[in-house]
Structure formats: C-alpha cells, structure tokens
C-alpha cells in the first residue's frame, strides 16, 4: 500500500489533543468525603505518574484514538499500486451498447466494466487526469478532463447501457484527438472497456494508439497482436528481425495465420495456434531491400478487429526515423492520416486517384458520395470507375451484354471521363490513366507536381 498524500500523517499530531481533551473533559462522580486532605497528599505523591496512569484501561480513549488514526489514514489517501503505467491522461471508453447488457458476467457485462473502470479511477494518482467517454451509437463525453475522483466516479455511475449498437470509431477518434495534444513526457492511455462486439474498427488498423483493451464478457473471442518490434537481425545485417507477440485473451484455443507484409506486399504467412489466455511470441526474418513499413496482420475474424494489425509508421517516426516513407495502396486512405497523426506527415503514396482533381467527372463522383454519406478513398473511386467503364463498354458494343460483346466493348473504351481522369485501355489491356503521387502535408494528401 502506498499513500498519495503521506503528509497527511502529520494530522496524527492531533492525537495528543484528544488525550488532552480526554483529561480535561472527564465525567466524574461527585462524592462527599470527610476531608480531601488525604487525597491531596495522595495526588501530590503520585503526581509525577498520574496523568498517564489515568489513561490506563480506557477503552473510550482508545476508540477515539483509533477513529482519529483511521481519519488520518484516510487523509493520507492510501492506494494499492497496480500494474498501471503512470499516465498523465487516461481516456476511459465505456462501451454502453446493447451487447454489454448480456449477463454472462455477474451482474452484467456493463456493471463489470463499470466496476473495472471505477478501480482505475481509484488508482488515479494525484495530478493525473481522466476523461470518461460513454460509447454506444453515439459517443458521449460523460466527464471532461479532470483529476477529481469524485466527479469521475459520479460520471461513471451516471453511465447506463443502451439498446443500440456500438460505433466505436468516433469515440476512438475523440480519444485520439484528446491524447494527441499531450506532450512527449506524458504517457496518455486509452482504456477501452468493452465486450469486443464492435464491427467497425477498420479505420484503426494502421495505428499506434496507446490502447489498452479491458475485455469484459466471457463468450467473446479475441486474438490480438500486443507487441511489434523491428530490429536488425543480429546474425545477418541485411535482414530484419520482426518480433511479434500474439495474445489469445479468449477462453478457447485459437488458430490464425499471421501475415507479414512489407508495404502491403505479402512476405510470409505463418499459421499459429495459441492456447487460451497465453501470449505467443513470434519472430519473422525478412530481408529489406528498401525503406518500407512492415505490417503484421492476423487473418482470424475475431470480435475486436482494431488490434489485429499493427503498423509501424508511427513507431518509425517515434523512434527517430527521419527518412522518407513511401507507402503502398494500403496507405491511400484518409483514415491513414487520421490514424498515424503527425507521423504521417511527409509520407508519399502513389495513387491512381487524385481526390483533389477539379475534373467534372471527379466532382460529380465526390458529390454523389457526399450525398450517400461516404468519405471516399482510392478504392471507392476505382470501384466507381469500374462500373462507369463497364457501362461504357456495354454502350459501345451496342447494348449487348454477352461475354464477347463486353470484351469487345472494353477494348473500345478510349479517353473516358472518370474520377480517375481520362481512361483508356492499352492494346495489352493495361489500364491507362494519369497516375499521381501524393504526399501528406498539413494532415492532407497533396498532389506532388
């Protein structure tokens, strides 16, 4: 046990005050005696030791002192050290979706999660701050950044499970934006209390959020990559050693394939089998001819997808890599900028779609996407273009939809206006359109001229 305010033990100095009170405020039985002369002499003789002899066998006094000691102890704010890293800011995300109402935990997953979160509030150290987000269909800030435990507890107690699905992305984004502003010396953490029944975490695949997932519920299965580190192979300098920890937090044995990619190019696939509750360390050896990003991904479909992929773009920057980073197709999404944050600055990505193109076809595409409420990325544009090309091919072949007709029609596609630009097929049936190189600048993709 430790104490948050050990100086409060100075309050123990008040104990003698109680004793003094006790000596002063003593209820006495009045008794008439012939003469107090003998008693005076008696007192005079025993005066030296009298004040403390008076205290002997005095349960009332002992109780009072005990109470005072307890009060002092409480003022000293004792806490039990947990394994928590010291953190300036903790963002607590409490999943309040319908699935949290299931009762495989007693009394319910939500209550369990709330209790867990309360423990974290209790272990909050002086000066550390906490934010509480309740997430269901909407994300609600239950308590803004504060270090006041009573307010945090109140906020947690005011949370309630709702009958709605989980949309975790906005909450994670909010948490991310909260911790992004923190300085380097602080150790922000995001604590997610959830049962893992969250569908849409694909945006966070390539991210280095300091996310700590507190799993609630027994039935769910989750396999997570908990650590990723790349080092030069000590035995062969031309190779890289990639250390990965795969943790199985579910109650069943899990099998998965681990995919190691360099800039999206699959280098190796390795099947692993992990007993329940265990962490399996894996070592990949790969030669690296050019700068790039190693990605390790588990193919198993589990309940919380956010931790399946670990990207090291962020880590590369954090570890002081100042060289250029060239990304593959996987980087070509606004989500990448969001996830990698400031680390994304300067990363160059080849792309087939220039989102900023003022071309009318592109503007039309953007408008219709906006109407549908989708934030388009390269793949959206490519899919859209594909349909346009198909329609053009059918048109060119005179409206015939036979196999041969469409093949013939595709060959006739020439300088078609698509969001990707003027599109044609070469005689070798390669797609021909204006490619562009994007670079992240000021948090946005800019076309490199």
């Amino acid at each position, binding site marked *: 046990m430790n104490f948050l305010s050990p100086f409060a033990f100075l309050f123990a100095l008040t104990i003698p005050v109680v004793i003094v009170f006790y000596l002063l405020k003593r209820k006495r*039985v009045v008794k008439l005696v012939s003469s*107090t002369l003998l008693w005076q002499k008696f007192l005079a003789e025993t005066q030296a030791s009298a004040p403390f002899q008076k205290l002997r066998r005095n349960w009332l006094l002992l109780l009072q002192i005990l109470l005072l000691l307890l009060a002092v102890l409480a003022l000293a704010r004792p806490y039990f050290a947990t394994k928590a890293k010291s953190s300036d800011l903790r963002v607590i995300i409490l999943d309040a979706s319908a699935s949290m109402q299931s009762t495989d935990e007693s009394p319910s997953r939500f209550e369990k999660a709330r209790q867990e979160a309360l423990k974290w509030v209790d272990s909050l150290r002086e000066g550390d701050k906490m934010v509480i987000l309740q997430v269901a269909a909407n994300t609600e800030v239950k308590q803004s950044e504060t270090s006041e435990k009573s307010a945090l507890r109140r906020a947690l107690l005011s949370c309630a499970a709702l009958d709605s699905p989980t949309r975790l992305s906005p909450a994670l984004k909010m948490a991310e934006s909260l911790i992004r502003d923190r300085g380097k010396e602080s150790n922000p953490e995001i604590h997610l209390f959830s049962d893992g029944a969250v569908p849409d975490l694909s945006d966070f695949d390539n991210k280095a959020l300091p996310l700590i997932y507190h799993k609630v519920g027994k039935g769910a299965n989750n396999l997570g990559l908990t650590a990723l580190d790349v080092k030069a192979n000590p035995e062969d300098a031309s190779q890289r050693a990639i250390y990965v920890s795969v943790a199985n937090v579910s109650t069943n044995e899990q099998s998965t394939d681990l995919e190691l990619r360099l800039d999206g190019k699959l280098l190796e696939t390795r099947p692993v089998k992990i007993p329940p509750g265990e962490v399996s360390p894996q070592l990949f050896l790969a030669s690296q001819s050019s700068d790039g990003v190693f990605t390790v991904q588990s193919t198993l479909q589990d309940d919380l997808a956010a931790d399946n992929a670990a990207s090291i773009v962020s880590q590369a920057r954090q570890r002081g890599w100042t060289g250029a980073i060239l990304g593959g197709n996987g980087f070509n999404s606004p989500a990448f900028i969001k996830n990698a944050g400031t680390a994304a600055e300067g990363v160059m990505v080849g792309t087939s779609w220039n989102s900023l193109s003022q071309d009318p076809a592109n503007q039309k595409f953007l408008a219709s996407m906006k109407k549908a409420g989708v934030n388009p990325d390269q793949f959206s544009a490519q899919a859209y273009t594909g349909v346009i090309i198909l329609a053009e091919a059918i048109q060119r072949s005179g409206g015939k939809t036979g196999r041969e007709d469409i093949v013939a029609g595709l060959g006739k596609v020439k300088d078609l206006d698509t969001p990707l630009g003027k599109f044609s097929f070469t005689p070798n049936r390669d797609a021909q359109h204006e490619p562009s190189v994007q670079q992240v600048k000021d948090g946005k993709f800019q076309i490199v001229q």
Partner: protein
Amino acid sequence: MPNPLLTPELLRRLEQFQLLAARRAKSSARGERRSKARGQSVEFADHRNYVPGDDFRYLDWNLYGRLEKLFLKLYEEERELPVRIFLDASESMSFGEPRKFDFARQIAAAVGYVALCGFDRVSVIPFPENKDEMAVRGALRAVRGRKSTLNYFQNITQLTAKGTANFNESLRRGALEARQAGVAVVLSDFLDPAGYESGLTALVGRGFQVNAVQILSPEELSPSTFGDLRLVDAETGGMEEVTFGRYRMSSYQQMVQNFCQRLREFCQGRGISFFMASSNTALEYLLLKQLRQAEVWG
C-alpha cells in the same frame, strides 16, 4: 442504666483504672491526687517552725519533747487532676462506618468515667463551637464526682458533629483557658488542612500531659469507591478530582501510613502518647489494652 456509649461490663472494668499523671497535680481544688501543696491528708510531708497563729493540732509534740522546740507537722495536700478532653466535633468526624464521632464519644465517655471515678475534674471541650449546643457544652466544661457520670454520659450523647474545625486554634485556646495543666486527651482525625503541630505544641507547652488518639474511618484507610471521582470536602467544600482504581490502592494506603507515621513521630518527639484507631476497632481492645499498656491509666 441504659447507656449507648459504653456497656456496663466495660464500665465495671474501667472503674478499676486510675488515670496516671506523670507530674504532680497543680489544681487548686482538693482531690485524690498527690500534689506539692501542703494541706490535710494522712500523708506526712515535712516539718516547719511554729509561727504564732498556727493550728496547735498540727504541732509535733513528740519532737517538742526531745528538742523543746515547736515544730509543725505538714501533710501533703491531695488535689484533683484536671482532665481536659478535646473532642473533634467537626463535620469530618460525622463520616465513616461506624461513625468516627461515635467512636470518639465512646473514648471520651470512657476517659471521663475513669477520671470521675478517681475524683478528678473532667472538661470536655468539643470544637468547633456550636451555638445550638451551648447548654450541653456548658455542662461539660467542668464535671466532678462520680455522681455526675450519668449526666456526663447524657450530655456527651447529645453532642453533634458539625461545622468546620480549626484544630490548632481550638487546642491553643483550650490550653490558655485551663487554669491548671493536667491530662489532655485529644480525640480527632487530625485531618486539618492547616496541620496539627502548633495546637499540640501549645498543649505540651502549657504543661499538659497529652494523649492523642487519631480516629480514622475504614473508608479513609482503604477507600472502596473507584473511578473518576470529584471529591468534595465536607468541611471546606473544596474539591479534588481524583481517578482512583484498585491498582492505586497500595500507594494510597502507603500514603495514609506515611501520614500517620509523621504524626506519630511528631508526638513521640514531644512526649505525647499517640494512638491510631480505625473507627471499627473494638473499643475494649483500645481502652483495656492499648491505653493501659501505654500507661495512660492503670
């Protein structure tokens, strides 16, 4: 003779005693004590020359026959022994079980009875003064003769213990009032905040043969009330806050012993016979054994 003070058996035993005075009586009244005064008795004392006017009956004719000179035979005058009993009748004496004052009255009655039987003059001086008992106290100022014992006992029975005593002052005045010194018996608890030294010294200085009996109640010797006490002095009204428990009993008793021991040593240093008695002491033991052994009477 119904007597609440002393049993007939005890009275019979006491009749055999006589107060022993170390010095010759100085009283002017005749009694049964040897004195330095010359007067009428059967005890020859001295001869002296005849001077005209002397009573012829006391001429020693045998001596005249041999020496042809006239001598007068002188006899010792037997005088009475004044016995003054200083009886502490302050409020503090009314405490105890049995009451200290009752015990003191029994001793006063016994001493008085022995004195009266020996034709000595008894003065009981209760202190402090009590105006309600003027008549009774006046009657006890001077009691003589065996025939007065009944009245004496009755008057003593009517005394009450009340008020605040000034021990030293009372004894000093008693010593000054006495025309002749004699035997003084001091019956008190000696629990006076001002002490007892100057009073006893005054009596001794006046020439009294002093016997001091300290009477304490069993409660005072070993208190039976424990806990947090606010003790109120019955006489002075002074308060004393004491926390007393069984574990302090021995130190209390030690303190009482020290107090009594100091009094005893003070008395021994001045030729005062000192007795300490708890008020539940058997009266016979004190009167027939202790006082006799100490040669107060015999």
